[in-house]
């Protein structure tokens, strides 16, 4: 028998209280006032009776009651050999081995694999073990087997990856493995550096009842220096008609040791182009700006690299840039009426806009081919042009239609998102205002925040009444409820119609600050323009649909380690990025116009600040990390058996209370007699 709260035995000292009470009780009684002690004083009497205990029964009852209550509070725990373990002694052990890149710090990985080997070495012949490597996800390396040699062989081959630590997926995998196990003893061992960044107190990472979770912390060597590149700033500029890139790297030192005399290098296309000295204080950061480099080609690869230190995985940072591509558009108007529009488009930098103006009857196929967006600025469109534009939009082009007094569209070509009706004159009385906007749409999203442009302040003196088509979306309405901006997807392209003019004949909009962002956002949206991402982080996924499609060849993804991952046309076009470096999406072998994606490690993983492993254990096991719930031989008990072993305190408490009742009865009776 053992006790869960043995400190309560200190209260046994309280047993002296009834004895003292018995001995001193009579002296504490009230003083009797007597007229004179003249006669009493004459009586020779040696008082020894009060030093004796008179009520032995009462004393015994009180002592026993107190002792029982103290025993009950000490929570006796019976550890019986027959205490109903779930089965025999065979174990199901799941070893969760952290292979995030932070495990490459110093000798952490060697110690982690040694700890895993220890776990396998302790296995008996009937035990089964599973090895799970985890970082941002969990990967079962070997499942539920007793062959120790195979474990060691696997441990010889595995290495830390490039992903960040996440404990929750690993615990969920371990939970599912032990839940399926039929063996009586189920244990999960988690070997990790227990970084605080990997635990967010996730719900759901809960192991089944009776499973013990043992953390093995691999920590220490905090005195070693470790620098990491946590981010880059890329600034483009034009020089001699060539685009140049200025790279600024941010380097952080998260250790307690300063780094001086180190260096940082910039590599482009695999060759070093610049090298700079680097000094960083403990817990500090530094930024290093390199000389501008010329972006010589598409998919221009660059890497910022630090000198080797205790953790190398975070020493390099990759990026990919391409020369910026302008958005080309053709403006169809009646000649020299597009002043406001062309001025607005000429201001754009990211992206740049290249616009050509054509009259309606002069739009060539070549114009349509080179343009990603066509703007119809209050023109009468012939049926022929309308049909060509319909085909153009079907193939992915964008069409912006501004409707002034002259705008006309042939009835037989169903392309526009709204039917153009009669002009509405609002020059008399109050001018029309734009009453409601669809702020969730990309075109109007920048105007969502307060003081970001008030469309309702723009007077519109005339507009064409628009009747939205069935599958069109009204993005803005005039105050009378008439559609002002309507959009429709047709084929791969989009058509946007604006119910008034892009000059000042019907509206003051071109003179208002909202005009420029409105036009830019509309053209970018219609062109399907997205900001190019210079890098992504390990663990993110790559949408392979952006890879160029060849006529017949199989599309593949080439990983940094040189693996070729074919992309199934039928299946998902999503590739998980698990390595840092450059991924290449290749289409046609002959077509060198492939896509390159730079992948970097999560800089947050370089922060080795540890979390108390007990926190994870408590969350995963509901607070019981084994210990009191298992027998001396380590066999975990069922909750019923555990409760049964601890139930004795109930009986002791009830016994103590009953004895106190007996004490009351006895003392009452004695008082009466």
């Amino acid at each position, binding site marked *: 028998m053992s006790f869960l709260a043995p400190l309560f035995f200190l209260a046994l000292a309280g047993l002296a209280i009834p004895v003292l009470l018995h001995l001193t009780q*009579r*002296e504490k*009684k*009230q*003083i*009797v*006032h*007597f*007229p*004179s*002690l*003249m*006669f*009493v*004083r*004459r*009586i020779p*009497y040696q*008082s020894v*009776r*009060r030093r004796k205990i008179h009520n032995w029964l009462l004393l015994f009852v009180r002592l026993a009651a107190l002792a029982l209550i103290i025993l009950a509070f000490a929570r006796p725990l019976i550890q019986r050999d027959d205490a109903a373990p779930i089965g025999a002694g065979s174990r199901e052990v799941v070893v969760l081995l952290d292979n995030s890149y932070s495990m490459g710090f110093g000798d952490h990985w060697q110690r982690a694999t040694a700890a895993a080997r220890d776990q396998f070495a302790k296995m008996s012949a009937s035990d089964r073990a599973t090895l799970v490597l985890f970082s941002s996800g969990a990967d079962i390396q070997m499942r539920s087997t007793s062959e120790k040699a195979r474990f060691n062989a696997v441990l010889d081959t595995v290495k830390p990856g490039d992903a960040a630590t996440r404990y929750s997926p690993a615990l969920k995998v371990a939970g599912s493995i032990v839940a399926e196990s039929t063996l009586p003893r189920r244990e999960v061992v988690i070997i990790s550096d227990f970084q605080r960044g990997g635990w967010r107190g996730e719900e759901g990472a809960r192991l089944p009842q009776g499973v013990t979770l043992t953390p093995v912390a691999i920590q220490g060597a905090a005195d070693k220096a470790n620098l990491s590149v946590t981010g880059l700033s890329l600034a483009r500029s034009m020089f001699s008609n060539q685009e140049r890139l200025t790279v600024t790297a941010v380097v952080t030192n998260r250790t307690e040791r300063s780094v001086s005399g180190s260096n940082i290098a910039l590599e482009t296309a695999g060759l070093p182009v610049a090298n700079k000295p680097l000094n960083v204080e403990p817990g500090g950061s530094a930024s290093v700006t390199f000389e501008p480099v010329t972006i010589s080609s598409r998919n221009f690869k660059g890497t910022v690299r630090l000198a080797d230190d205790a953790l190398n995985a975070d020493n390099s940072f990759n990026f990919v840039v391409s020369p910026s591509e302008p958005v080309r558009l053709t403006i169809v108007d009646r000649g020299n009426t597009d002043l406001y529009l062309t001025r607005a488009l000429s201001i754009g930098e990211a992206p740049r806009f290249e616009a050509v103006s054509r009259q309606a009857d002069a739009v060539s196929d070549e114009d349509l081919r080179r343009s990603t967006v066509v703007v119809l600025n209050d023109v009468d469109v012939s049926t022929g042009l309308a049909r060509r534009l319909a085909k153009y939009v079907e193939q992915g082009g964008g069409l912006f239609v501004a409707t002034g007094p002259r705008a006309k569209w042939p009835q037989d070509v169903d392309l526009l998102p709204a039917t153009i009706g009669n002009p509405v004159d609002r020059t008399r009385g109050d001018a029309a205002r734009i009453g409601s906007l669809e702020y969730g749409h990309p075109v109007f999203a920048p105007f969502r925040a307060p003081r970001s442009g008030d469309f309702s302040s723009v007077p519109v003196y005339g507009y064409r009444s628009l009747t939205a088509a069935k599958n069109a979306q009204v993005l803005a309405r005039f105050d009378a409820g008439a559609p002002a901006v309507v959009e429709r997807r047709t084929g791969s392209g989009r058509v946007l119609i604006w119910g008034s003019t892009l000059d000042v004949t019907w509206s003051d909009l071109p003179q208002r600050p909202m005009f420029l962002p409105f036009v830019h956002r509309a053209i970018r949206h219609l062109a399907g323009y997205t900001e190019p991402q210079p890098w992504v982080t390990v663990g993110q996924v790559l949408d392979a649909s952006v890879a160029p499609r060849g006529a017949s060849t199989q599309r593949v993804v080439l990983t940094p380690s040189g693996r070729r991952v074919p992309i199934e046309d039928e299946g998902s076009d999503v590739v998980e990025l698990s390595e840092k470096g450059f991924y290449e999406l290749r289409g046609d072998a002959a077509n060198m116009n492939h896509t390159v994606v730079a992948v970097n490690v999560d800089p947050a993983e370089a922060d080795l600040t540890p979390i108390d492993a007990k926190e994870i254990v408590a969350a995963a096991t509901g607070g019981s990390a084994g210990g009191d719930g298992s027998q001396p031989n380590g066999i975990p008990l069922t909750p019923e058996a555990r409760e049964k072993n601890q139930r004795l305190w109930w009986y002791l408490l009830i016994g103590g209370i009953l004895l106190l009742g007996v004490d009351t009865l006895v003392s009452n009776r004695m008082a009466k007699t």
Partner: protein
Amino acid sequence: MAEAHVIPGARFMDPVVLARIGNLELVSRAVADGFINGLHKAPYFGASVDFAEHRGYVPGDDIRRMDWRLWARTDRYYIKEYEAETNMNFSVLMDVSKSMDYGSRGITKFEYARILTACLTNLVHHQRDRVGFVAFDDAVVEHVPPSAKHMETVLHVLDRLKPGRPGHLKGPLHKLAEHFGRRGVLVVISDFYDEPEAILDAVSPLRFRGNDLIVFHVLDPTELEFGFTDAQPFEDLESGEQMPVVPDAFREEYRSLVRAHIDALTKSFASVRVDYTVLDTSKPLDHALYRYLGSRAKMMKVR
């Protein structure tokens, strides 16, 4: 109780009930009237208003007391003198020391003594005797000189009295012995916590001028029986001294000591012809009154 019915027809009341009434005049009248009704054939009653003798007139005498018939016969002025003028003085000397303030049965010795004094005073007043009162502890606390008009004063003084200080018989009683110059009846009421010799020494001088002395020894039943059960510390009311007492072990010894004390006092007082009576505060007052009347009868016979 046999003693309660010594005098047939008397309405005797429980002292505890009397103590609750509070108004001493009412109490004393009730007790004395009841007692007197039971004694209506007693030969002493009315003796004090009888004609005694004639004496010659001297200027200044009240002419209303002139015996005109005798003048008619003798042609001399005589004044009638009555027995009333020879009525005795009656004084109660009551111990009001702290030890008297003890009672275990609803009435303290002090209250008992007070009621007893009031009853005796009332009784005496009815008989046209002069009443006086002295309260003492270790000194004289109150003193009302004997007078036929002092009945109300005595009752008033009794009403105000409170026991408080330790008592000592010798000092005040010796002083009083010199004070009572005229022969009369003196009643001493006390609990007599002192050695018998010392008590006798203190009380005896009161008799020197021919006073008739009645001593009432007032005791609570607990003082007689020592009926305590639990071992407890006892504190002397007067000295404040404490000592642990185990009543079971003390009781017999205590009783025999008290008995010896009373015996010694009985013997001592008998030797000097002093009426000595032990009064138990749980008993009615008739015993004490009867004792007084008996004593007065003896005195009258002596005259």
